[in-house]
């Protein structure tokens, strides 16, 4: 009897605890639904839910209005040739209050102090503010190439060369002078890294064939092919410049926070391995605000690594941190219940998520089957089903081959394989092909048991007469299986550091990028267009026209991957944080915070 009484009490207590947990968790769902309903009313407010694209000018205007010394700089000409349309202006800096320390969450701990050796965005959020690149993408749009260490640049007429003129008097954090030799050393190190030093984001820098130091401030680069892509490559958030005098002493290996010495707006003051990096403003930073006052506005930045999203949400809700570039909607919206002043802004992630098909073996060595599989899938339903309920519009969006930079992005739903009106016809066509080709079953490898993609694909394909067998492995094992060519279908995602279709191509389709794994060889016409695209100006009409043609070829003649979805992400910040816009690539670009300020 005693046993029964104690059992009953124990079970009751556990039930009470469970109710507590459910109560806490269910507030997630309720809160996730609430802002969805409230969104239209709050749109544009400085402290509410802000829809992505249209809200940005409004947010910027609100911030500008709130700034006592708000001032938008006059555009500054750079010496780029008239032919190219890149970088006509420097970033439109907005004046702000000086002082204060911004505390931000940098995602999980970045693990490696050499940020060039790890491709995850936690590296840029945790370390990038200490460095500068040759050029940089504007933190306002994430696409415009703007000056950084180089103040001027030119491309040769034949696009086989480029020339960069660097700022004078730039100093490393340890007081040493920066020189062109540091740039040459860094690019050489990218191309020929010391043993055991990976360089996963090298793609664009492979365009550098040779370098010539003209004088202490000028560098000429010869390209491996005619291209204008050297400019975005130099602006890539990962392509920061290292000090030769520091890395020479360590054999090119950077393995401690003490060795994080850059020319960036902040310098490392202290760090706690695995948890935080405390940075203070660099008094010798070479860039000034448009009014001539020194950048940065902040006295310092402390970035804290968080091992999970619950913790991140709690840190934001209790006001311990000011900013996090991305938090899941189910965790971010409930924060507003406790802290109404929190600002949540939706932004489109520059990513591509799709299904990789192994084209080196049956069944997907057959183009017709690849097309049938891609068009048979209802990607709209996948995006809808995998989104967090209650978040309007959906957290995920369906895509074509170029993800965020999709030439058909605005009307992606009208594409043949995506258009809901053609869904029945597409499915009937796919089913007929599967039947004719005898495809009845296929394996789908997944590395995330909680991701619904595999299950949704399984259900959709079952209706088309194909039995999808899901094989779940732990992430590293699954990746290894893909490298070994043992997978047939494999879901993958890739984030890119610039909102440019070329970046998607570099990371996903271009031979040597990595994700071309077991992908069919591109049609000759597509490769020709890629060569032309390499010469086109970033963001130009020519680029759009070329990618549109390439997109068509990919649907009709190649089908290298099944484009599925890309995520929208949710920036969360305290309302006193100014001048960190929610733009695509925010994770990468907005990691120097040179003109961010606190309205406290």
């Amino acid at each position, binding site marked *: 009897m005693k046993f029964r009484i104690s059992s009953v009490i124990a079970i009751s207590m556990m039930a009470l605890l469970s109710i507590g947990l459910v109560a*806490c968790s269910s507030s997630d769902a309720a809160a996730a639904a609430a802002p969805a309903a409230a969104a239209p009313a709050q749109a544009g407010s400085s402290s509410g839910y802000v829809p992505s694209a249209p809200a940005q000018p409004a947010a910027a205007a609100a911030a500008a209005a709130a700034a006592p010394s708000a001032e938008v700089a006059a555009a500054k000409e750079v010496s780029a040739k008239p032919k190219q349309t890149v970088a006509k202006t420097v970033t439109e800096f907005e004046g702000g209050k000086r002082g204060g320390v911004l505390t931000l969450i940098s995602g999980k701990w970045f693990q*490696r102090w050499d940020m060039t050796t790890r*491709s*995850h965005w936690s590296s840029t959020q945790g370390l990038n503010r200490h460095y500068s690149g040759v050029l940089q993408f504007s933190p306002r749009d994430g696409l415009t190439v703007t000056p950084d260490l180089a103040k001027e640049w030119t491309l040769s007429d034949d696009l086989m060369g480029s020339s960069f003129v660097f700022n004078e008097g730039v100093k490393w954090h340890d007081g040493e002078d920066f020189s062109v030799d540091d740039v040459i050393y860094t690019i050489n190190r990218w191309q020929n890294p010391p043993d055991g030093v990976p360089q996963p984001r090298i793609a664009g820098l492979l365009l550098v064939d040779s370098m010539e130091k003209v004088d202490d401030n000028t560098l000429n680069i010869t390209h491996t092919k005619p291209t204008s892509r050297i400019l975005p490559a130099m602006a890539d958030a990962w392509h920061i410049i290292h000090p030769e005098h520091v890395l020479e002493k360590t054999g090119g290996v950077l*393995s401690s926070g003490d060795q994080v010495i850059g020319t960036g707006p902040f310098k490392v003051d202290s760090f706690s391995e695995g948890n935080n990096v405390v940075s203070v403003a660099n008094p010798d930073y070479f860039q000034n605000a448009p009014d001539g006052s020194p950048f940065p506005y902040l006295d310092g930045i402390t970035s804290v690594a*968080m091992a999970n999203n619950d913790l991140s949400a709690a840190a934001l809700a209790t006001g311990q941190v000011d900013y996090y570039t991305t938090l899941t909607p189910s965790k971010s919206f409930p924060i507003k219940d406790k802290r109404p002043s929190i600002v949540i802004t939706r932004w489109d992630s520059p990513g591509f998520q799709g299904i990789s098909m192994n084209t080196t073996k049956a069944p997907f060595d057959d183009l017709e089957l690849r097309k049938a599989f891609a068009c048979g899938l209802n990607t709209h339903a996948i995006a809808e089903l995998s989104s967090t309920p209650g978040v309007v519009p959906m957290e995920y969006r369906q895509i074509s081959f170029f993800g965020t930079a999709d030439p058909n992005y605005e009307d992606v739903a009208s594409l043949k394989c995506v258009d809901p009106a053609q869904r029945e016809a597409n499915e009937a066509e796919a089913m007929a092909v599967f039947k004719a080709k005898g495809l009845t079953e296929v394996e789908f490898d997944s590395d995330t048991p909680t991701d619904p993609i595999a299950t949704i694909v399984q259900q959709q394909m079952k209706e088309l007469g194909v039995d999808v067998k899901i094989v779940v492995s732990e992430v*590293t094992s699954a990746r290894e299986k893909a490298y070994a060519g043992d997978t047939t279908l494999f879901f993958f*995602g890739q984030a890119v550091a610039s909102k440019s279709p070329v970046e998607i191509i570099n990371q996903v389709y271009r031979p040597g990028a990595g994700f071309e794994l077991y992908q069919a060889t591109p049609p000759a016409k597509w490769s020709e267009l890629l060569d032309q695209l390499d010469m086109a100006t970033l963001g130009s009409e020519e680029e759009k026209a070329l990618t549109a043609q390439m997109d068509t070829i990919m649907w009709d003649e190649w089908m290298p991957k099944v484009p599925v979805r890309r995520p929208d992400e949710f920036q969360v910040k305290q309302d006193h944080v100014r001048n960190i816009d929610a733009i695509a690539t925010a994770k990468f670009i907005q990691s120097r915070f040179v003109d961010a300020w606190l309205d406290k």
Partner: protein
Amino acid sequence: MRQYILRRLLLLPPTLLLLGTILFFMVQSIPGDVASALLAGEENAVDPKTLEKFREDLGLTEPLIVQYGKWLAQTATGDLGYSYYFSKPVWEVIKPKIETTLTLAIFGVLIAIVLALPAGVFSALFRGSWFDQFVRTISAAGMAVPAFWLGIIILLILSRIFGWMAPVIHSSIFDNPIEAFQRYLFPSLILGFRSAAVISRMVRSMMLEVLSEDYVRTAWAKGLQPRSVIIGHALRNALLPVVTMLGMLFASLIDGAVVLETVFNLPGIGLLMVDSVIARDPGMVLGLVLSIGIFMMIWILLIDLSYKVLDPRVEYD
């Protein structure tokens, strides 16, 4: 006694060799390696040719037996090896994390002792009372509730209901004891509570057994003070198996720390172990396990030696 200690210390190298060898081949047998983890990261892929070249650079393409020989030769010199994932010597990666995990484990043990001893003793003394029922119920719940679940519950309750959470910026307990206390309080409480659940039950049953012994009855009959009988005669004898268990529990506390470090964002050995296994970093995994192995063997030796203090009748030879 000296011979006993010497014998136990001499057992250390062969035990570690066996442990390291088994682990070496286990780590090598699972799919994936540190080269792909480094090049691919969380969301990137890599050109197979680049990957192969990188594997060669790291020596991962050498025959397994050659790799094992190299590892053995290097470990024999007391060198824990090099972590490719963190690109620094293993010991340099482990060193700053020790304080966190050890603090968590020590606080956990202290809380467990403070909670479990009185609970177990009074539970036995007042067997069948409401207090006994309460302690048994709580200890049953403590054993049943997973640490991560309890951790998340506490985190949510503190932040959502009370609008409070411990400071997120980590600092050493020696630099800022007050902030460190706040950071360690709840994870230590969880660790301690779960351990106390086990220990209190053990103390209770041992006390019940000892209290029925003749010598305890004699002590009562001699008219000794209750405090002297319970603490001096009964508890001291009841503690012997409990101390053994405490030793083992310390190992499970390190195990529990893996989970709680993740939930409460404490940069310790636990988080490091998880990251190293995911990264398939053989140097780091082996170095970590060997370090924990050495620590545990010495810890268990100390526990064994403490028997003499509790019971002078114990002979080691």
